[in-house]
């Protein structure tokens, strides 16, 4: 559905060349739900704008649903839906009017456009707001309208740029229900996000981008297992001996002592913890607390770049 080779985009900013996206190679198959994860300024939106024909690549190529973004942008546009970071509907236009216009833009006749608009007003729970100007809607309502606008022509592939940005948890959950329903109906979904939890919990595949390059691409589970590992934390009366014993645990990494607390990382924490506890017990170390923490995608990002995504995003 998406196939890029060496996709690159440079910007000229004050006579300096900024390489926003550097040689993106990406394959997305039909029906996948892919999260494009990275800190602000990593090149997520620039990539998305190239894939949706909004921005011409500096070099490289991208084929969307079989059509080249540069050679045949019109064919690409007919097949994709795009929900940008901003508001898709103009503030002074009525909700239903914008949906009808959108249908007309994709070649539906007037009757079909109205029918489709009403259908989407229902599924996206916007029917009561149909005659209101879009600018009077709340954040969550506007986002639902944006998605409705992106779905009017039933695209095979839907791009969403930071769809949940700025929404409260309840609206975010509601938004995801709609995205997952789309996914269930066979639509390929490609979205950018800098919310770790979201990519972790919802996407089947996570593509991590940093400084314009893809640095990881796999399921969240495998990324975490391969790159991060579980965190073990024990507090004891003798942290120095605890650390020495922890060091002897097979595959243990990054053993750190912090006051009475000793932390380490292992591939399979729940299996290692009992072993460690028995060893400490045998050495008559008094264990006060013990904890296994599953890794997050932030740990993955940290392992890959040495930086925390949370710090970069803040």
């Amino acid at each position, binding site marked *: 559905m998406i196939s890029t080779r060496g996709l690159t985009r440079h910007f000229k900013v004050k006579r300096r060349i900024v390489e926003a996206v550097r040689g993106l190679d990406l394959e997305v198959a039909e029906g996948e739900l892919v999260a494009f994860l990275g800190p602000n300024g990593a090149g997520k939106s620039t990539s998305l704008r190239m894939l*949706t*024909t*909004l*921005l011409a690549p500096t070099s490289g190529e991208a084929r969307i649903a079989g059509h080249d973004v540069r050679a045949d942008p*019109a064919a690409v*546009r*007919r097949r*994709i*839906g*795009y929900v*940008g*970071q*901003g*508001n*898709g*509907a*103009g*503030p*002074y*236009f*009525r909700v239903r*009017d*914008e949906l009808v*216009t*959108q249908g*007309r*833009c*994709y*070649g539906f006749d007037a009757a079909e456009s109205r029918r489709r608009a009403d259908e989407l007003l229902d599924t996206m729970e916007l029917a009561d707001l149909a005659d209101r*100007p879009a600018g009077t809607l709340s954040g969550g309502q506007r986002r639902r309208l*944006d998605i409705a*606008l*992106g779905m009017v022509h039933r695209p095979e592939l839907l791009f969403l740029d930071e769809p949940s940005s700025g929404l409260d948890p309840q609206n975010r959950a509601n938004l995801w229900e709609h995205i997952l329903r789309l996914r269930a109906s066979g639509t390929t979904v490609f979205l950018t996000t800098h919310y770790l939890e979201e990519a972790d919990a919802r996407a089947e595949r996570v593509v991590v981008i940093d400084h314009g390059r893809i640095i990881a691409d796999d399921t969240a589970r495998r990324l975490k297992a391969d790159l991060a590992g579980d965190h073990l934390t024990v507090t004891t009366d003798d942290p120095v001996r605890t650390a020495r014993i922890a060091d002897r645990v097979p595959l243990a990494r990054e053993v750190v002592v912090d006051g009475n607390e000793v932390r380490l990382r292992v591939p399979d924490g729940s299996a290692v913890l009992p072993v460690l506890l028995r060893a400490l017990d045998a050495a008559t170390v008094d264990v006060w607390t013990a904890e296994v923490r599953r890794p997050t995608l932030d740990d993955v990002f940290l392992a890959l770049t040495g930086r925390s995504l949370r710090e970069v995003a803040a």
Partner: protein
Amino acid sequence: MRLVAETGIVFTREVRPTLRNPVGLVFGMAQPVVFLVVFGSLLSGLTWGDGASWQWFVPGTLIMMGLSGTVSAGYLLLAEMSGGSLDRMLVTPVSRAAMLVGRTLKESVLLLAQSTLIIVVVLPFGFRLHLVGALVAMLLLSVVGVGLGAFSCALAVVARKQEPMFYVVQQTLMFPLLMLSGVLLPIDTAPSWMRLLSRLNPLTYVVEAERALFAGDVAGSAVLGGLVSAVAFAVVGVLVGARAMRRVA
């Protein structure tokens, strides 16, 4: 053919909020009328007697309205660029040219409606209406309107990264363009450098054509000059504007 249909779609979208907001429409329409009646009445007391000042002043007001009205196409485009709704439109298969022309056409049509209203209002004050001339004059006006709107959109695209620049450049261009076209005050008595500049201003020819047309002189050379000037202005405007629109995407 597709271009026409797509222009229609964009035009319909643009014009709907205006039609759906009658109060705003009434105020927008009333503004130039109030200006004309107040300013025109002042003038008619000054030099010319009965109605002659209207004959000179109405065409000028229409052009002025054209300038201030159609440039709002750029302002609206700017708002849609920063809000995100233009991006949404740009990802649809609708052509960039249709997006531009549909927008400017809406301003032109509003301008036509306003002009009609103005003419109706000044009739009781002694304005002499030459129907054919007035119709050609309004057609001319809407052609210029498309050109002005398109240039304004092009400016909006260029200035999209620094929005205040849009207003600064627009205001800076607008005032001399107005003064040098002889819209408000006759240019004949101006210093020679101003008269030269005024000859270089395409709007000057349109203003002259408008005055000739409203005086009932449909076949004069002024009309031809205005027509050529207006069409050339509109064509260049649309070309520049369409190129700019392709640059956004």
